[in-house]
């Protein structure tokens, strides 16, 4: 039996005296597609940063693909981050590298491929996202839409166990769906998206977890969640699931 893509037990996080996460438990299996719905952007962002190993929780334990996450060991964290796609609005390209160097960096660095070998390896992805003409440019030459597509290709070059997206830029963004589908087909990774976009929830999520007042609900069926939203707009963040 395959281990959970991510498993969190009793995760808590406090900031400036406010308890943002209270004993949060979550387990995602490989291939599971979950939408995170939260009234607090801060709490959702912090929870997903913890899942992405970018923040250490105050209490609790976490496993990624069965491997215990020791937040004190930077080398292990770096190794684990190669298995995680983490995309939020702060995710950026490296400014002094060209688009191609940005895309090929992981392959060139971790696998010691030559730029030519990396080009051959990544060519299908570059074509899939229609980036051929952008390869020699630098990030400062690009508009936000182009940058987003390049970031998606960079994420696609990973073979992740877990993909995390925090409020993707546009809910009708075709490259986003291309990436999500590619990630699932290529590596069967679990995927968690924090969004308030109904179209994204309807189009892509299988299940929804609701984070309210620091407490995370168990995953609920998407259809039930949408019905509960329509029926009880004031109680839409019911944590009982």
């Amino acid at each position, binding site marked *: 039996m395959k281990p959970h893509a991510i498993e969190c037990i009793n995760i808590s996080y406090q900031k400036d005296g406010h308890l943002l996460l209270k004993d949060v438990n979550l387990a995602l299996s490989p291939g599971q597609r979950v939408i995170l719905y939260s009234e607090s952007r801060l709490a959702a962002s912090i929870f997903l940063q913890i899942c992405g190993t970018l923040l250490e929780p105050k209490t609790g334990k976490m496993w990624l693909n069965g491997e215990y996450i020791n937040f004190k060991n930077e080398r292990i964290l770096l190794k684990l981050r190669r298995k995680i796609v983490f995309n939020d609005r702060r995710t950026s390209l*490296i400014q002094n590298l060209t688009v191609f160097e940005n895309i090929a960096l992981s392959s060139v*660095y971790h696998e010691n491929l030559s730029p030519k070998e990396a080009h051959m390896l990544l060519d299908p992805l570059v074509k899939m996202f229609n980036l051929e003409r952008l390869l020699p440019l630098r990030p400062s030459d690009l508009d936000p839409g182009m940058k987003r597509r390049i970031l998606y290709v960079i994420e696609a070059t990973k073979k992740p166990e877990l993909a995390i997206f925090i409020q993707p830029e546009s809910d009708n963004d075709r490259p986003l769906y291309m990436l999500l589908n590619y990630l699932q087909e290529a590596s069967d990774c679990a995927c968690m998206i924090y969004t308030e976009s109904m179209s994204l929830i309807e189009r892509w999520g299988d299940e929804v977890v609701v984070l309210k007042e620091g407490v995370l609900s168990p995953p609920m069926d998407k259809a039930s969640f949408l019905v509960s939203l329509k029926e009880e707009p004031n109680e839409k963040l019911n944590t009982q699931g």
Partner: protein
Amino acid sequence: MINTIIKKITYPVILSGLFYRIVKTMFLQIGKGRIVIRKTILHQIYFCAVEILLLLGTIGIIFGALVIIQSLAQLSKVGGSEALGQFLVVIIIRELGPMITAIIVILHSGTAIATEVGYMTVLGDIRAITMRGIDPIHFVAVPRLLGLTIGMLSLLIYFDVVALLGGFLVSWFFTGIPFYNFIMNVATIIGGDDIMIGFIKAAFFAAIIVVICIFRGFGVEGKITKLPVAISRSAIECFLFILIVDIIISAIFYL
């Protein structure tokens, strides 16, 4: 007030810790990402050393000439003009060479490193590097330390040679000393120790410049307004720490 004093006292310890981390990372991750790292090292050597050859050469000739002019003025009073070479060796190779080279490198490359790393922090490059499973210390600090150290050592040799040449030109102009005599005069005085101590100083200075500038650059923490302060602080601190280390090394080897 007490906090400020404690911060000032612990600052060299923090810098030593960062230096240890850079060196440890360099050995632990040897060979990793060698294409990218090698490219950055070469770029660093080019930027830190090759780009300032003309400037440093001009400064070297001027300093060599100045030392000889001052020495001539004093030595001719006591009839010791033949000791010119000795003066050059003592002043240029032992002290001024490493110091002037370090100051030029701080102004040209140290501030550039602090600015670049500061921008990388502000613009999210460091986060992007981390999210790709790459250690920023290995990707950013290690090639800069290696590149700057190689560059500093090369620049020191270059500065010493050019300054001696400048000294010779002035000596020849005023005293008509032949080149062979001048070189022999220098060669009999200069010792292997002098060259080695110059290299030791240059290596220490390079480490100080890189560690302080990287530390200040990382310390910008996403706030662009902190960048100018970080740059000016890094330059001042580099200069101060280099003076202190210079005195310590000179005292250890020459007293």
